[in-house]
């Protein structure tokens, strides 16, 4: 400390004492203190926003993992099934049968609230599909009582979760104030209750009048297939390109140009890749619309620069002495690279790839243009190969779609979807950190 004050031209003479700080030292010490304070404030601000963000995501999204179900025994005879199957609107017929049976059962039980079948219909979500699928899969259960957990309507769900209250509810064809008395009575009887929302995690998208039936599972699969395409293409291409550029390519104007362009590509807004994908992959190459294959190709373009840049950085980080030693004992250039440099750079390459994939996983903009927004994630693909080509959505596109729907139930689902997406991103980032910690070598 005193060294610096000695050298400074203003303080020509030495300070009185080494133990007493002079004005200049104090000033510098204070500046340092202030800078540290700024740093702490900056970090605290960042943390504050992070906490606010997480708190709001969790508080809005956690309810999506709970659902309200109507849990009762239901018996369907073969004759009733055949009759329902003979109509056009089969699911409606199943739903009517269920409502009639439940209504009769409640009357027999002597429930204390007045109700009619229309009221029960308002309490239930779209249940016909669930019942029809069940009996199609289990025809042996016809005639036996089966315990069904069927989704309640979005507003009843909202009543359980506090979204809908008696004070704000306005009578409409969706739900009436008097229906809430019935809901309370059924809750007492244990018929309506809350349960963990498995269909949300495993299910597919649903129509806008059926928030209870919407799930993110199908679009998780869509994202998975897109990531397979991205990984399968961008890792080999990216690594090959960076090894060539870093180890073999001559330094000239042409390679300089390529380098500049790679850096430029990394900064291109992702929507541009979407437009490119639409023009090249769909309109020119006639690949199927809304397919994870096309989504994967578009995201590959977006991820490539990230992977190339991080791969080159980790290749550069391998000390030249390793290469020199390998070449010195007679290895060819290629042997030196593949036997010595690449294994040492691998942890860095993997980390860069995983971070690139995580970025691609959360990307929505390019998907808007290649037909992944709307009612697309309607079910699981038929097989592994079909997974690439059958229309499907991706997690961020599904979240975007839900957030735009009128029913508040979908808004909640969008937040729930964000939680699931964040869990995937977090997992990938943690894997990247573990790989780096475990395998990276520093010189």
């Amino acid at each position, binding site marked *: 400390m005193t060294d610096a004050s000695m050298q400074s031209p203003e303080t020509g003479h030495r300070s009185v004492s080494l133990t007493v700080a002079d004005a200049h030292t104090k000033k510098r010490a204070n500046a340092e203190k202030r800078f540290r304070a700024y740093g702490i404030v900056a970090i605290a601000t960042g943390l504050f926003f992070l906490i606010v963000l997480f708190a709001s995501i969790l508080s809005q999204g956690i309810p999506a993992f709970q659902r309200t179900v109507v849990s009762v025994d239901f018996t369907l005879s073969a004759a009733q099934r055949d009759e329902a199957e003979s109509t056009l609107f089969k699911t409606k017929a199943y739903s009517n049968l269920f409502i009639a049976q439940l209504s009769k059962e409640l009357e027999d039980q002597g429930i204390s609230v007045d109700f009619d079948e229309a009221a029960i219909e308002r309490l239930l979500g779209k249940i016909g599909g669930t019942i029809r699928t069940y009996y199609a899969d289990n025809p042996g259960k016809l005639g036996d009582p089966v315990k069904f957990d069927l989704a309640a309507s979005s507003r009843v769900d909202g009543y359980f979760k506090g979204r809908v209250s008696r004070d704000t509810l306005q009578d409409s064809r969706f739900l009436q104030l008097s229906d809430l008395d019935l809901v309370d009575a059924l809750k007492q009887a244990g018929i309506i209750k809350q349960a963990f929302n498995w269909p949300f995690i495993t299910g597919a998208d649903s129509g806008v009048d059926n928030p209870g039936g919407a799930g993110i599972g199908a679009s998780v699969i869509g994202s998975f297939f897109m990531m397979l395409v991205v990984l399968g293409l961008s890792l080999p291409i990216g690594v090959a390109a960076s090894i060539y550029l870093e180890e073999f390519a001559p330094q000239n104007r042409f390679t300089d140009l390529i380098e500049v362009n790679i850096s430029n590509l990394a900064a291109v807004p992702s929507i541009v890749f979407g437009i490119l994908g639409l023009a090249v992959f769909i309109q020119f190459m006639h690949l*199927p619309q809304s397919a994870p294959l096309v989504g994967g190709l578009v995201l590959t373009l977006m991820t490539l620069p990230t992977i190339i840049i991080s791969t080159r950085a980790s290749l550069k980080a391998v000390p030249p002495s390793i290469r020199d030693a390998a070449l010195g004992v007679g290895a060819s250039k290629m042997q030196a690279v593949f036997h010595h440099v690449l294994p040492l750079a691998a942890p860095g390459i993997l980390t860069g790839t995983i971070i690139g994939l995580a970025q691609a996983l959360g990307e929505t903009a390019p998907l808007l243009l290649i037909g992944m927004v709307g009612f697309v994630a309607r079910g699981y693909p038929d097989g592994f190969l079909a997974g690439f080509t059958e229309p499907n959505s991706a997690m961020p596109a599904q979240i975007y779609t839900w957030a735009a729907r009128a029913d508040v139930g979908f808004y909640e689902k969008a937040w729930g979807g964000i939680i699931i997406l964040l869990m995937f991103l977090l997992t990938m980032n943690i894997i990247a950190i573990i790989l780096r910690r475990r395998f990276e070598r520093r010189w």
Partner: protein
Amino acid sequence: MSFVKLSASALAIAAVSATTAAARDNVQVAGSSTVLPYASIVAELFGENTDFPTPVVESGGSSAGLKRFCEGVGENTIDIANASRAIREKEIKACAENGVTDIMEVRIGYDGIVFASQQTGPAFTAFEPADIFNALGAKVLKDGEVVDNPYTTWAEFNPELPDVEIAGFIPGTKHGTREVFEEKVLLIGCEATGAMEAMIAGGMSEDDAEDACLAVRTDGKAVDIDGDYTETLARIDTNPNGIGIFGLAFYENNTDKLKVATMSGIAPSTETISTGEYPVSRPLFFYVKKAHIGVIPGLKEYAQFFTHDEIAGASGPLANYGLVADPELAKTQDAIANEVTMGSGS
């Protein structure tokens, strides 16, 4: 070496699967974000109730949907375009140039457009088209002269309206809703206030005057919303003085947050819209590529299922969600059964 072989064969399989998958077995729909909710309801039910795979319904707006519809015939083009307005001459021509000649027009019902504000905000309960025009038009009539819109609060031109800052959130120009708003509200309001007459008297041709009537003020009091109604709702949520334009179905799903205003004294509801009393409504359509019928499995069945009485009728799930059923549905059903195309005379 085996890795090379493996990856080569994987690539080959991927390429083969990409080409085989071109034989599409699901109906592909795109277009209006107003029709999307109804189409998604029908698509889900169609998948649940028939043996055909669930159709894919993309959004993007009427114009974008029709543009893709007109790109040509073949499995990599869409089969159906949803539209919240009728197809235009220009679009039919563009279609024909690309070989899309036989188009079936299907009207599925009507949609009401409502003016709503925050539930707890100022008392916007009754509007006339003239009020909306005075508030949001670019040029209005004041003291007998056509001037750039000088109004900053609603009470300045109509003392019965609240004395608060004007803030209108209207659908952007890519939405079919914008056209209805212009024709059924702005134009009517322009005529009612006498601004149109004054413009023509001031030397404008009738067409120019009409265009001038449809212009929306650009000083920030009228805000174009290019996104969905959810975005409009978010803007209204943060601005108690804001007036937003919504579809009837959207409003009915959010009655706890929004209160609706009457237009010309009529409250919007499925009843007043189907009788034609409520003035701001429009028909909704989808357009079917006839050349794809018989090629894409389930296409005609989808159109028939959509317009079936039990689906699009007055007590069906679409009406329950907010679509105003078409009283002439039977005619539409016949037209689909007979595959009647546009311009074929019937």
